[in-house]
């Protein structure tokens, strides 16, 4: 019996295709973990920003002043974008004059819907990648395993005496591919589920806010129209 086979020897002795599969899976795992960390920080930050924004917004600040503060800002975050684009449309339309309250409100709603869609896309970046890794890397690993086992049995056919010791290393090295596939897939699936739930929660809050803003602007537009 030779010395104990380490997992690295197994990988080094695997056939080229299996090695490629393993390399692909390692790459997928690294990238998906990178996405997971990135999304994690990003979404946590977004949540904190929504909290801070809502606190500020409902503190009774004058909306025009608030808008003026935000407008010049470069890196606006999600919910601020919704507010700014809605309010900008509102001021533009009402400054233009001649537009009636309903037209103003339609414009505002459209502008906010666009902003919301854009924000949703931003929140959901990378999630499709995680979903892909989670659903396909087990198959990729399985492919490597099947290929490895196929080869190890094929070489068995040429032997006069078939022993377990002559197939076992091949099967073992092939199974490493499946293990890697699962290693890449499990965090990706968990990350995907968790992050999509969190994105959904955030989007609900954005939408609720945009509805609230619509209500406020609607009241303002109609009172202005009544004044005129």
């Amino acid at each position, binding site marked *: 019996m030779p010395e*104990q086979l*380490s997992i690295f020897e197994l990988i080094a002795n695997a056939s080229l295709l299996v090695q490629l599969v393993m390399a692909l899976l390692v790459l997928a*795992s*690294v*990238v998906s*973990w*990178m996405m*997971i*960390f*990135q999304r994690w920080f990003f979404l946590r930050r977004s949540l904190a920003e929504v909290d801070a924004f809502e606190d500020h917004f409902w503190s009774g600040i004058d909306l025009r002043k608030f808008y003026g503060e935000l407008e010049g800002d470069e890196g606006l975050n999600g919910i601020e974008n919704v507010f700014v684009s809605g309010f900008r449309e509102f001021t533009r339309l009402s400054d233009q004059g001649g537009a009636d309250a309903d037209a103003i409100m339609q414009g505002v709603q459209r502008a906010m819907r666009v902003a919301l869609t854009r924000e949703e896309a931003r929140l959901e970046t990378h999630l499709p990648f995680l979903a892909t890794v989670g659903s396909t890397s087990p198959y990729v690993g399985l492919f490597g395993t099947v290929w490895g086992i196929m080869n190890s049995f094929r070489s068995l056919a040429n032997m006069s005496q078939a022993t377990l010791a002559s197939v076992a290393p091949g099967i073992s090295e092939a199974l490493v591919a499946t293990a890697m596939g699962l290693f890449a897939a499990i965090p990706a699936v968990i990350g995907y589920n968790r992050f999509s739930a969190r994105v959904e929660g955030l989007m609900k809050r954005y939408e609720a806010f945009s509805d609230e803003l619509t209500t406020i602007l609607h009241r303002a537009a109609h009172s202005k129209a009544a004044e005129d």
Partner: protein
Amino acid sequence: MYLLREYTFPLLLAVTLHGAAVFALYSGWNPEQTRENIIQPRAVVANLLVLEPKAQAKPKPPPPKPAVQQQPKPAPAPAKPKPDPQIAERKRAEEAAKRAAEEAQREKARKEAERQERLARLSELAQTSLDEAIAQEDAALQAGTEEMVAQSYRLGIYELVRQNWSRPPSARNGMSAKLLVELIPTGELVAVSIVESSGNAAFDRSAEQAVRQARRFEVPEDNGVFERHFRQFYFLFQPEDLLR
């Protein structure tokens, strides 16, 4: 710039994580070792029993114990016999009293001399037994190194036979067959015979076949060691890993 700022840290974390996983696999994971210990029980315990050179007589010798058994034991000193203190004097007559006293004196002197002599003899005996013990110990030490050499060769033989042995399906736990193996100094097998049958003909045959298949064994160069340990030896076959 945005990409760099946003993704450097996550990438670093991900790479660190994978590095840690690889390191954990590399340092703490020795699957083969544990598997070897648990799943691969020894297929056979074959004990080589050394045949003493004098036991090469015609009648089959009784199964000798594995070697190295005589421990040097210094001969116990003989117990000192207590001389019966017989200083009984008879006071029969006055004149006898004087003579008796004289005699007692003589007796005392004689006893003293006797005691001295015995003491001397005892110490001499103790000395010789010590010498003997040292000599015995030396011999045992030498026998010990020889035994170690023999043991290493024995292991080689055991391993070779074990690899060659294919147990018949009818083998059961608790069966054991003892074979007498005879070699010539080149290590070649000259004869193998069954000394104690397991009661199962197929088992006996398989054991004999295992020895015959080896044909040639590794034996020590030293002729003395060979003669003492490998000219003739017993081989015990026991299947131990069967589940039934």
